[in-house]
């Protein structure tokens, strides 16, 4: 009886010492996983996930404070990639954070704009040009379509315009065949 207790205590002490030493020796600092997560996120900086930008969301995911299904612009694909990276199960997009929309850019109606600069302050990527009392324009190439400039505008002069398909950005479509039910299912 006593020997058995002694043996177990002895084991516990030895193991405790070994693990204690290695805990100090293999201490981990920083978390490179945040960068990996951040590179999957679409960088719209739209804040729909409930965090003030993509990086904060990435940090939250890495710390286990946020789920992977809170990013509507990233869409299903983004969630799949996050799930793959983190080795967790895929979950469908959380509707609380909004629905995925077609990629669009903000366009300022330059006739209505009063040049209040509120939108400039709201834009997370500095994609709006203009100064006080001069009408503003949006650098279309830089616009992420985050819609953050819409609420502050006092005269509702900003519109989100979906990017149209043209000969330049046109893509080949997924082949669909009548006989092959499976490909139809996948395409839909």
């Amino acid at each position, binding site marked *: 009886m006593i020997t058995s207790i002694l043996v177990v205590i002895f084991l516990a002490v030895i193991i405790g010492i070994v693990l204690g030493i290695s805990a100090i020796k293999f201490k981990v600092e920083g978390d490179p996983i945040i960068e990996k997560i951040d590179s999957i996120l679409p960088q719209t900086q739209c804040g729909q996930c409930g965090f003030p930008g993509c990086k904060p969301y990435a940090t939250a995911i890495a710390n286990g404070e946020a789920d992977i299904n809170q990013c509507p612009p990233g869409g299903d694909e983004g969630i799949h990639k996050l799930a793959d990276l983190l080795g967790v199960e895929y979950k469908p997009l959380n509707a609380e954070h909004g629905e995925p929309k077609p990629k669009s850019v903000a366009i300022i109606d330059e006739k209505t704009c009063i040049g209040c600069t509120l939108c400039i302050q709201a834009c997370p990527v500095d994609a709006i040009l203009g100064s006080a009392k001069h009408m503003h324009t949006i650098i279309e190439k830089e616009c992420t379509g985050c819609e953050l400039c819409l609420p502050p505008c006092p005269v509702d002069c900003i519109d989100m315009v979906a990017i149209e398909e043209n000969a330049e950005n046109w893509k080949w*479509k997924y*082949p*669909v*065949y*009548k*006989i092959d*039910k*499976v490909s139809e299912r996948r395409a839909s």
Partner: protein
Amino acid sequence: MINLQSPFVQGSTSVSNIMFIVMLALIPGLIIYMYFFGIGILLNIILASITAIIAEYFILKIRKIPTKVFLTDNTALVTAWLLALSIPSIAPWWITVIGTLFAIIIAKHFYGGIGSNIFNPAMIGYAILLISFPAIMTKWQNPSYLYDANIAFSVFMHGIDNYDGIASATPLDYVKTELLQNKNILPILNEPLARLTQMQWVGFGFLLGGIFLLFTKIITWHLPVIYLLTLFTISSLFHLIDPSQFAPFQFHLLNGGTMLAAFFIITDPVSGPTTPKGKIFFAFLIALLVYLIRVFGGYPEGIAFAVIFANICVPLIDNLTQPKVFGHD
């Protein structure tokens, strides 16, 4: 509407043609089989075919896939034929039915049907039968016991219990059991049961059909040639090391399902590798395992297990044997 894209012209091969030619190539072996062993095998093939078609039809219906196209692609038939040719011709009807159902439903359609099955369906069916009903699956027809269609039909319906002497061990089985009693192999090989020339003639028939397949470019040379070559080399090597323990290569090449496997079973494209190097390794692996199981293992014939095991390795083999792309180093 389909989205029409290039190429707008097409060659003339089709899956159903390929499978049809495979079945055609099985005919010589089948005829020789029937010549020596009666019509038992034919009953099995017909039953297997019918079972396969019916199973396929119902599964396609359940999966809501157009039935006509997939029933006429002949793949289910090829599976049924190969399975029926692998099991003893004196097996009762329900053996054939169970095996075929396993092959079509589990090995094929669980995985998504033609093209998606990772295991050779016929071999899955065979292996399941072998481990479930070893007594029936290891008794082969005694070729000296010639009988008429009535008996064949009775055996088919009720099994062999009413007929003494109808069954005997295969040469592989016989030699193995004799060897277990620490006998020298040379006298054993001269026993009539070890020299089943009828079986060897059937193998020859499959060889003919296989050459036809090679000739019509349905299969490439890699699989059968490497398979037979490896089996030849290993058996010769062991025979050289100890002729009193290991049978010479003729014994291994001509007995069991060697020829059927070489040209028809391991050449199943869906569950096999696609790269030339991969095919070589695949065939080598199967031959090696077949020899090991035959000589050292617990089962008299190892083709089904070897094929399934090699099937498991296929994705990895394909992955590791990707050929160089044009211009890449």
